[in-house]
């Protein structure tokens, strides 16, 4: 009896230690996304395994939650009101640190894998990651619009977990992608608590002629403007010359 009790106590003491004994090892199909002229979105494959120093506990389910967040931006949210019969932008709020993109994918509904406390600590769910969304109507509107446009999404069945060890998930990045560093986080949970996490970055940037055009337009606007005008003049002149030739 005493032996059994001692064993139970040891087990209970060991439990958190054993839980901490699970680590995530992960990789991405690509660490950078190039926006080329014919860019139409990209699919990032996130895969990995759970490294263990002891047999897996069987009483609580292993949760794998993956988040991908776009670069934080300051945005202005405006509301339209009816003024003299027409709908015009009236009130507005500036909201800082809003990611351009946020995807959460997991191997089950978030509330079954994650306790509210752990969610608040690690800022995983959409309202936790984008706190502006919880208190004001403008914040709610921001979340609603971005959710409807597919920029913020939650896929509770997106992660495939095999043998409680190997996992993989695909996150689709939209065609209208903003440049910047996309932070990818992977969380392992047991009983609602995060037992390990891993963070890595995906670099999204324009390349080639897109890069060149964008940089010129932003950094050398005078030269860029002149270039646009000159190209238009040449194109107009060329078109008229070509068609005069065709007509004879």
């Amino acid at each position, binding site marked *: 009896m005493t032996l059994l009790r001692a064993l139970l106590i040891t087990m209970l003491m060991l439990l958190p230690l054993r839980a901490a004994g699970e680590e995530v090892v992960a990789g991405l199909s690509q660490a950078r996304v190039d*926006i*080329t*002229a*014919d*860019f*139409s*979105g990209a699919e990032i494959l996130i895969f990995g395994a759970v490294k263990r120093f002891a047999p897996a506990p069987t009483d609580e389910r292993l949760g794998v939650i993956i988040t991908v967040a776009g670069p934080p*931006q*300051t*945005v*202005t*949210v*405006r*509301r*339209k*009101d*009816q003024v003299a*019969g*027409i*709908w*015009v*932008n009236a009130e*507005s709020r*500036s909201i*800082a640190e809003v990611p351009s993109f946020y995807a959460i994918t997991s191997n089950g509904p978030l509330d079954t894998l994650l306790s509210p406390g752990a969610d608040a600590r690690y800022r995983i769910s959409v309202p936790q990651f984008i706190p502006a969304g919880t208190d004001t109507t*403008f914040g709610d*509107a*921001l979340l*609603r*619009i*971005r959710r*409807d446009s597919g920029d913020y999404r939650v896929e509770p069945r997106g992660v495939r977990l095999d043998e409680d060890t190997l996992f993989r998930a695909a996150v689709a990045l939209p*065609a*209208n992608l*903003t440049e910047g560093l996309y932070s990818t986080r992977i969380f392992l949970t047991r009983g609602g608590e995060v037992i390990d996490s891993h963070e890595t970055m995906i670099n999204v940037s*324009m390349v080639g002629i*897109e*890069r060149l*055009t*964008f940089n010129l*337009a*932003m950094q050398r*606007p*005078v030269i*860029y*403007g*002149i*270039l*646009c*005008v000159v*190209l*238009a*003049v040449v*194109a*107009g*002149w060329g*078109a*008229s010359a070509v*068609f005069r030739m065709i007509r004879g």
Partner: protein
Amino acid sequence: MQIYLPVAEVSVNLFLLLGLGGVVGMLSGLFGVGGGFLITPFLFFIGIPPAVAVATGANQIVASSVSGVLAHLRRRSVDLRMGTVLLIGGLIGSGFGIWLFNLLTRLGQVELLVTLCYVVFLGIIGLLMLVEGIRALSRQRKGAPPKRRQRGWIHALPFKMKFRASGLYLSVIPPLVVGASVGVLAAIMGVGGGFIMVPAMIYLLNMPTKVVIGTSLFQIIFVTAFTTLMHAITNHTVDLFLALVLLLGGVVGAQLGSRIGVKLKAEQLRVLLALLVLSVCGKLALDLLLQPSELYSIAQGGH
């Protein structure tokens, strides 16, 4: 096939853009209209940010006007002196338009300004074309009434100048004002403004019709070039990729249009074009008048 527009930062279908440029080019070939007033609203409809649509629209008009003015220069149907006076007014107007555009961008009201301008001007042009088209269809051939030459207040204005190609001795104030109002429209709407300038030159300045088109094209080239440059410098909203694709479609479309135009009955088509212009106007007006399904919108940057 998708094409990613680096300045607009959106990905759109390449063939849709080529087709848009082509159709509008064809209309301009058929009817001799610039087409800027159709391209810009259609760019709104396919999701290009309005500021980019307006600035890029202006850039595209530079090309089509160069194409057009060359033929007029060969025929010597450009009044360079009148064109220069209109141009000086145009630059002043465009500068003011850009200032207004940027001010309203900061206030978050630029979309309203652009849409309102389009509703008003498309409405006016559409109605005028419809009336004219229907009149032409019903063949009211009673012999055109002789145009009453407006004498009076315009000729009482000071700072007179001789415009030999137009055969006019006129104060520079009216052409400066006409040029300036067209310049404002170019900056705000991304159009050439021929639809305002041509009637004003004929009815207000009494210019002979043979030099009107060439002279207005001459002015439009420089004013839209200046507008493009100013939008590029102050707003970074000119998308070169978008302009080139539209251009390519537009050039081919315009040539096709001018050939088809020879074989078709222009009066019926004119009524169709008027209906098209009015329906674009109606769509924009409804967006302003009906309660939008989403009252909120997101713009980048704080304020």
